[in-house]
């Protein structure tokens, strides 16, 4: 992540986030409740854009590809970088369907 900033309306939620997440490693994040951990994770695959009032600037680079580049297909990057919520949500289909969805 390079200079990642997230605004909800005029509220500046994430300020200049610069993080390198190593390939193939388990990376953990711990901070107090409400500090923006989920917002940061949702910013990675642009899931945060389902909220209309949000504005994101900066770069999220995965294998050299900027997920916030204007020509990027959002559904394709989400296939590449999925996100599972802390609260499990099962889709109304078979277990196989749930495992292979997307």
């Amino acid at each position, binding site marked *: 992540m390079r200079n990642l900033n997230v605004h909800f309306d005029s509220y500046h939620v994430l300020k200049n986030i610069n993080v390198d997440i190593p390939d193939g490693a388990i990376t953990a994040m711990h901070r107090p409740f409400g500090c923006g951990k989920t917002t940061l994770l949702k910013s990675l695959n642009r899931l945060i854009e389902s909220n209309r009032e949000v504005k994101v600037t900066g770069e999220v680079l995965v294998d050299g590809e900027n997920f916030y580049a204007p020509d990027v297909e959002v559904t394709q990057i989400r296939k590449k970088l999925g996100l599972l*919520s802390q609260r499990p949500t099962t889709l109304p289909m078979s277990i196989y369907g749930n495992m292979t969805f997307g």
Partner: protein
Amino acid sequence: MRIRSHDGSALSGYSWISCGDSSIVFGAFGFIVMTTFGLKVSLLAGMITLAVLILPVITRALDELVQTVPHELMEASFSLGATKWEYVFKVLLQKIFPGVVMATLLGFGRAIGDAASVMFTTGFTDNLPAGITKPVATLPLAIFFQLSSPIPEVRERAYAAAVILTIIILIVSYSARLLNRRFAQHN
């Protein structure tokens, strides 16, 4: 993506306003459509009128259903790379399918029992229609016209039509109720 009644779209506005409207208003609307497009009283004109009549009923029922679907389901689908249409057809519709059938049955029940909306548009005949542009008798209209006949045999046909209509509406209402119960268990 928002599929909600408060989205300010023309369709949701129409459904909220016209859901409680009297059937005769839809009949008048159908009549205006007929005169505008040069249609005669026919099965087609009746179908158009009834479609407009049940559209707000079904739309409102579906709107309420969609609002019961948790937001997390949409988020989970999108986070795994689903497109809007994949979400709608593979997830949302799967989730609310019994409710969709129930809403359709409710609309059907409203349409089949309605007399005022088709009075100006379908015409009346004692025969089965030979085509979509020919007049047709709906069951409520058959009851309405035949009951006022001085001939006892014709009045008996009206009573028979009333029994058939009641049975059909009972079956439809009971099916909708069963589906509603199943939908409640499903969620």
